[in-house]
């Protein structure tokens, strides 16, 4: 009982940390593509931790699995959305801000 | 603690509603409307009304948002070259 509650609290705090990272990344990253990284990865991990932490407190197995199902749904939704937006951004000609040091070599290879 | 939560929720609701109404940039208005719908769903959940929260999440945030975005796209297509002429030079406050 005590161990499960402690683990649950730890997971919830970890989830809040990843949510914070996602929000800070959304505010701090330079362009749409980088912000999509922050949105998909950090937020989904945050929700995963929160869902796992709450699942540890669930009354029944089905209730716990429901939380996992919600997490999987959000995973699927956000990766599909991120890909659709990234693809559309590229079609519209939004050029990503590339790193100055490594951009040239990669650009050359991409044009070929 | 609950008072703080409810106060913040109410403030965010008012803020997003105002931001949605008081702009000439249609994209911004639609996005703020979607945000308002999501916050409204949270408010209903906070008021212990999960069925209305479900309806708000489905209709307010999900379907209406998608329909408004679709309408926005159709509007931009029909206007052709100048998709947001009435919005002026970006309605930044």
């Amino acid at each position: 009982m005590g161990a499960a509650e402690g683990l649950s609290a730890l997971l919830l705090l970890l989830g809040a940390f990843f949510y914070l990272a996602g929000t800070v990344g959304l505010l701090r990253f330079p362009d749409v593509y980088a912000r999509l990284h922050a949105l998909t990865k950090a937020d989904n991990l945050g929700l995963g931790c929160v869902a796992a932490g709450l699942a540890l407190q669930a009354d029944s197995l089905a209730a716990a699995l429901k939380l996992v199902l919600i997490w999987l749904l959000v995973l699927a939704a956000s990766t599909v959305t991120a890909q659709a937006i990234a693809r559309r951004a590229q079609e519209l000609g939004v050029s990503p801000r590339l790193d100055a040091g490594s951009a040239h070599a990669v650009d050359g290879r991409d044009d070929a | 603690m609950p008072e703080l939560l409810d106060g913040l929720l109410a403030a965010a609701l008012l803020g997003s509603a105002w931001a949605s109404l008081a702009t000439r940039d249609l994209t911004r208005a639609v996005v703020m409307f979607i945000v308002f719908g999501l916050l409204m769903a949270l408010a209903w959940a906070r008021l212990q009304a999960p069925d209305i929260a479900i309806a708000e999440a489905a209709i307010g945030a999900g379907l209406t948002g998608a329909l408004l975005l679709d309408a926005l796209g159709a509007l931009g297509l029909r206007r052709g070259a100048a998709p947001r002429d009435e919005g002026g030079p970006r309605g930044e406050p």
Partner: protein
Amino acid sequence: MRRALAAGALLAALWWVLTEGAGGYGLGALFIALALAWVLRQPRTGTAPRLRGAIGFAAFFLRQSLLGGLQVARLALVPAARVRPQLLELRLNLPPGPATQLLAAALNLMPGTLCVHLAGRRLVLHVLDARMPVEPEVRAAEAQLARLFGFTS
């Protein structure tokens, strides 16, 4: 027949989870039957996922998405850290179809990769940190997916 049984079992499990084990199977049977009829009318793709591959892929995916979240957290929260984005074009070994689409979707959640363009076997990724070895990661994910869909033989 095997397909119908597997899909039916999955749908029944889904209903059980959605009702939190509270039952209501009269209504549930109706919806399960409707969903099953819809599933069986979909065309076969020829790539049915393998159970063993699915478990391996799930473990791999969980570890990678944890690493992805940690990387984004480090880049966002450490003040000195900054992103070094770059574009990377790859040729996939997987045959085009559900496998490549699932690969692109999974890469969106793995460390530092975001799928920008996917056409046939050509995949363009937006990489968050140019110093990271992205290509081995993609190849590992590809191998996992090949095992999931039974392409290894």
